[in-house]
């Protein structure tokens, strides 16, 4: 029984080490231009954060536009209020799209972002 427990414990330890160390084993270390690559990857990460931020903001804005339309159709907003709110929201949505396009241009990954599929509820 002790042998079985020792084997199981050993297997468990091996699995733990394998799981935890996988990213460390996969990471390639840059050679001569290490600093430059680190800066570039830092910039890329910053761009990634901003892109994710803008995508989340875009989804929210689309949802707000739909909510406003539903509020109009269910009688919670007058037409005047709806027009004012809707144009404001669409202007904000365009700003976000502009910033996304600028970011895509800067990161040079426009073809990938064209294929991006932001979530829209429903």
């Amino acid at each position, binding site marked *: 029984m002790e042998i079985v427990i020792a084997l199981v414990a050993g297997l468990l330890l091996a699995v733990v080490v394998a799981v*935890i160390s996988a990213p460390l084993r996969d990471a390639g270390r840059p050679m001569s231009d290490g600093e430059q690559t680190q800066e570039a990857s830092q910039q890329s990460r910053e761009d990634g954060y901003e892109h994710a931020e803008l995508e989340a903001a875009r989804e929210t804005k689309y949802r707000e536009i739909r909510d406003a339309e539903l509020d109009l159709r269910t009688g919670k907003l007058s037409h005047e*209020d709806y027009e004012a*709110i*809707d144009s404001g929201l669409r202007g904000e949505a365009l700003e976000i799209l502009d910033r996304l396009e600028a970011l895509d241009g800067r990161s040079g990954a426009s073809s990938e972002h064209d294929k991006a599929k932001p979530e829209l509820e*429903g």
Partner: protein
Amino acid sequence: MADLGRICLPLALLICVYGIGASIYGVRSGRIEFSDSGRRAVYALAIVLSVAFAVLEIAFLRNDFAFNTVADTSSRTTPTFYRAAAVWSSQEGSLLLWAWLLSLWSSLALFLVRRRMRDIAAYATAILLGFGAFFISLMIFYASPFSTTNPAPAEGVGLDPLLRFPTMMIHPPMLYSGYTLCTIPLAFGMGALLARRVDADWIKAIRRFAFAAWLFLGIGILLGARWSYAELGWGGYWGWDAVENASLMPWLTGTAFLHSLMIQEKRGMLKVWNVSLVLATGTLAIMGTFLVRSGILNSIHAFGGATLGVPFVALIGVLIAGSIYLVVLRREMLRSQHRLDSLLSREAIFLGNNIVLVALCFVIFWGTYFPLISEAFTGTEASVGPPWFDRYTVPLALLLVLLSGIGPVIAWRRATFANARRNFAAPLLSALVTLIVLLAAGVAHKTLAIAMFCCAAFVLGSIGQEFFRGTRARRAMAGEPLPLALVALVRRNRRRYGGYVVHLGIAVLFVGVAASSSFQHAVEQRLSVGSSTHVGKYTVRYVRPTATITPKNDAVHTGSTLNVGAVLDVSKGGRHVATLRPSEGFYDSGEPAQGTVGHLIGGQAVSHISMSAGVTRDVWTAIAPDISTPALQRIITIGNRTLPADQGVVALAVLAREYLKNPPAAQFHFIVSPLVMWIWIGGLIVLGGGLIAIWPTPSAVRRRVTMRSRARAAHGLARA
């Protein structure tokens, strides 16, 4: 086997320590591979704790009484289902369950955000592993689930009879899932503050986990209330017990957070408020866990043995101090981007709703913790009972229900008075009709109940109106038949309409609470066989006694040795309504000093209530039979004197026969409560609404929208 468990715990602690270090190093140095390794440490922790949990579970199922926790909470006569669930009935097992669930939910959360928010996720990983390290350390140094005794006892003590109820066994995993899920938004909240990113992406990531925590906590609370009502012998579902309150508080702040999160999402407002709420919810969840292990409670919820109050107080202190420090440090980036456009807006209503929820939480916090703290310092037992809680929570609950009906009919950003007048007409009419009907029914003296019914009618009116108008709008747009239009409407607006269903469920639940509290009839009476009593409009007659010795191989055997009860006939207006069979189970005390027969029934006596549940009312009853009569006691005394140790059950058979032949009068507790079932129905509606709101969008409806969306947005502007 215990050795394997004992190896798992320090290995798990090492994983936590490594993961914390790797995550922090990774995020500070920008070396993603270390952040990823830290995240994978959480997965590894889940694997190791799963093995540890499996070891303990197998020990329970195999009746391995060498494990102290198995010997203390299980026995060979405990049915398999209860044996499997007895794992978390002890301090040690429940700590393991907590840590295991934390590792599982953390793994899921971090897996889902593995490609996003790397800096926030890295800090969150470190914080979640910190919690893991805390609980694992408690197990290693204070309360190990794998401590053993050699030689192992031949038999265990058995599971507490009060816990031998199916709902009770599911209640802890649900509650602990809620508590552990509360730590995830807390960890991501702290991570967002540390990483200086408290914007849209963070909200999107934690919203689902905050919702899941809210759902699981709610289910756990409801299951606990159901257990209290259907199992304990007092006939109530909520007693403002300290532990009940401790689970309700994070649920209230979690509810507030889910609402105000929408405001931050749409308007960039309430950032300080939201971050504070999410930190408070996680801290309150830890405090709820602390309460049952602090040693300051004497309750069915409290774990005996080693008290863990000091380590928990230290952790709570660190959480509170750390939260305040972070919020103050980052106050500049938490400034609101906008202000409220109008007081007549959904944002304003949500803000009001938040204030009411936090006020409720504060009242309950004060009523729960102040007496405990006072008692801890002064040594004098202080108590704050249900009347105190009712005095302050009922008006706030009324306001909450009312606001939950107003919010849906008000637009975001601003609404006009003309629109508001039109939108409030149907809900107000609904409330007015309800008021008239109730006054006509002659219940004017029950003002609070009437107020709650009217508020609930208002909510039903406003929610019904929303569904009606939304479906009508959908049909006008898409030309779909009515059922399809309704489904499409909900499917395309899950958050909104799921939320409406939740509001509906809350209103229904409060109707049940108000009716059962205000219009209840309760009678306590001593009855002899053949006699009867009146409870409200019902007549209850004691038909005959029952007395059985429970066979040990009974599939649903709860461990009782003797069950004594009654058959009751319930009628109304001369018409038979129900037959009730309450009983009391007597359990083995395990104390040989009580005698061969005495110990068999000398343990805890547990009431098994009987109830006729219906849509309009429940008829509930409990019995306290009298087995202390001279005739019955003589049987026990003679049995103790004459019977060998393993023949005590013979005397119990004689006792049971004597009880049936000459039954003494028994004490009964009868309750007729209107509309109790609507509490559980309301809870199910809340659950359904929550699932609708949280359900992920099918990938089939995701569209390529970059250029098309720009065109739509621009088209809209041109049209304006």
